[in-house]
Each structure stands twice: as structure tokens, then as C-alpha cells.
């Protein structure tokens, strides 16, 4: 009996999962504003959460910021102006795509650097394995010859 209950609750929980995403009744003046709104809330990060965008968060601050994004768009602000508005208040954290600064260049170039290190390691390893596979040293040849001749 209790097993069935657990199963029922688990199944209900699965059903509700899509409902966990934020749904609000927003009144959009037109389709372009709607599309820009959804683009912006997908690329701005919720300041309260470590890895959720504004679109996916139910935190109070995310609700407030979504309303703010819409208000700014209706006021006629451009996407860049909305992003700057958020940056001026919440800093780099709110931008999912960090800007190029003295602090963030490592973030941008780091993966490239790691790929280069990996490539060079792979290259040197394959080079050395080629050498050992084909090249026997003089003393190796001598001892091999001795073994065969015996």
C-alpha cells in the first residue's frame, strides 16, 4: 500500500516538473517585444541562484527582474540597454556570457590553452611511440642478433 503511495507521489511529482518553471501572465504589447523578452530572460542569470537563468527561476528576485526586463522593453529600451541596466546593478554575475576584461580573459582563453596543451602532449606521445616501435638501438640489435644466432 505505502509502496503504491510513494509511486503515486513520484509520478505526480514528474507531472509537475514542467510546472516548476516560471509561468507568469505577462501582457506583451506585440510579438517582437515578446520574443526579445524571452531571449533576454534566457541569457540573464538569476542573481540568487548559482546556475539558473531568469527564465527558469522562481526566486522572488527573478520574478522582479523579469518584470523589470518587460518594463524596460515597453519603455523602448534596446536589448543592450537592458543588459547594461542589469550589469550596472548586478555586475558580471548576471551576464551568462561574460565580457572581455582583465579578470575574464583566462575564462575565454583557458579552454583553448588546455586544448593546445592536450594536443602537444598527444603529439609528443605519438612521436615517441613511433620512435620506439620502429627504432631499435644498436645494443638492442646486437643482443637480438645474439639470441637469434644462438
Amino acid at each position, binding site marked *: 500500500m505505502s509502496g503504491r503511495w510513494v509511486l503515486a507521489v513520484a509520478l505526480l511529482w514528474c507531472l509537475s516538473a514542467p510546472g516548476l518553471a516560471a509561468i507568469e501572465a505577462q501582457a506583451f504589447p506585440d510579438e517582437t517585444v515578446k520574443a526579445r523578452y524571452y531571449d533576454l530572460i534566457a541569457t540573464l542569470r538569476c*542573481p*540568487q541562484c*548559482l546556475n539558473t537563468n531568469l527564465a527558469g527561476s522562481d526566486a*522572488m*528576485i527573478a520574478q*522582479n*527582474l523579469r*518584470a*523589470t526586463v518587460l518594463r524596460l522593453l515597453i519603455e523602448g529600451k534596446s536589448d543592450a540597454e537592458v543588459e547594461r541596466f542589469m*550589469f*550596472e*546593478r*548586478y*555586475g558580471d*554575475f548576471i551576464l551568462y556570457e561574460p565580457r572581455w576584461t582583465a579578470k575574464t580573459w583566462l575564462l575565454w582563453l583557458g579552454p583553448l590553452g588546455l586544448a593546445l596543451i592536450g594536443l602537444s602532449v598527444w603529439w609528443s606521445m605519438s612521436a615517441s611511440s613511433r620512435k620506439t616501435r620502429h627504432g631499435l638501438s644498436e645494443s638492442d640489435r646486437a643482443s637480438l642478433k645474439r639470441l637469434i644466432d644462438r
Partner: protein
Amino acid sequence: MAKQSVLIPVFVFAGIIVLLWFGFQLSDPHLLPSQKLNDPVPDFELPNLMQADQTLTAVDLTGEVSLLNVWATWCPSCIAEHGELTRIFETTGLRIIGVNYNDDSKAARAWLKRWGDPYAFHIVDESGTLAIDLGVYGAPETFVVDADGVIRYRHVGVVTQKVFEETLTPLIQNLKDAS
């Protein structure tokens, strides 16, 4: 030679572990640096919680060094913090200004009646606009504002006696000495 090269990945792995172990302890990722440090408190025109017909502006925050404390009745840690704010006001007489954030004013007044009111006054920020301009992302948050209304420090989370004595008190003393 072959034995040594087997050890290289082990050393690399150990190096990464050490790097990440210390790297993740350097700073709490939940704490965002304030963008508003050394900026004046942003302009606002919002009602006074206790006198709804009175409009408060950024000018009301000037005149003396104050704590600007963002709180709400839906915030459990604000109750925990309230005792310390009361203690601070009673022992130091420091001006504490409340920002009642995303809250119901009636509930807020009842909350203050229940827990006491050490604040000079409360700004009603029902839709969170002032909070957004301040870069607030939760409650409680506390700002140290100097006599000219410039933000000098932000503390995210509960102001405990330790935080007040070790961090805020020296800062406030400096600001008072400077003005």
C-alpha cells in the same frame, strides 16, 4: 623512464585537485560584489511605512552615517537579525533605516509591533524597484551609508554581533571621523 611517465597524469590530477580545493574556498560564489559601492544611494520616491502620506527620497538618508537594512516579513533570517539590530540601536544609537522589501505593509507593521522597531523609519519598496537599483538579490542585506548618502559597504545576509563588531564598527567609526 616508462615508470616516470606513468606518474605524470597522477601528478597533474593531484595538481588539479589542490588547485580546485583551494580555488573554491577563495570566495563564496553566493556573494555578489556590490556594483554600487562608493555611489550615492539611487534616487527614489517611496512612501513611509508608518506615514503612508509621506514620501521619502534619497535625501532622507543623508545627514548622518546610517545602516540601510533591507528586510521583509517573509524572510525568516530577518527575525534572527532583528535582535542584533535592536541591540546595535540600543547600545550605539546608530541610525538604522529599513527598506521593507516586496512586502505587505499591513503585515510589516504587525511584524514590527510584535518584534519591536529600532528603525528610524522604513521605506516601503513594495515592488522591489529600490532594491533592484541597489543591486539587492535577497533579504536581509545591509548597506552602510555615509552622511552624504554614499554607499560605503554592503553586507549580504544576517548582521551578527561578530559582523557588526569586527567589520561594521571600524568602518562606521572611520566614516564618522572623516565627516
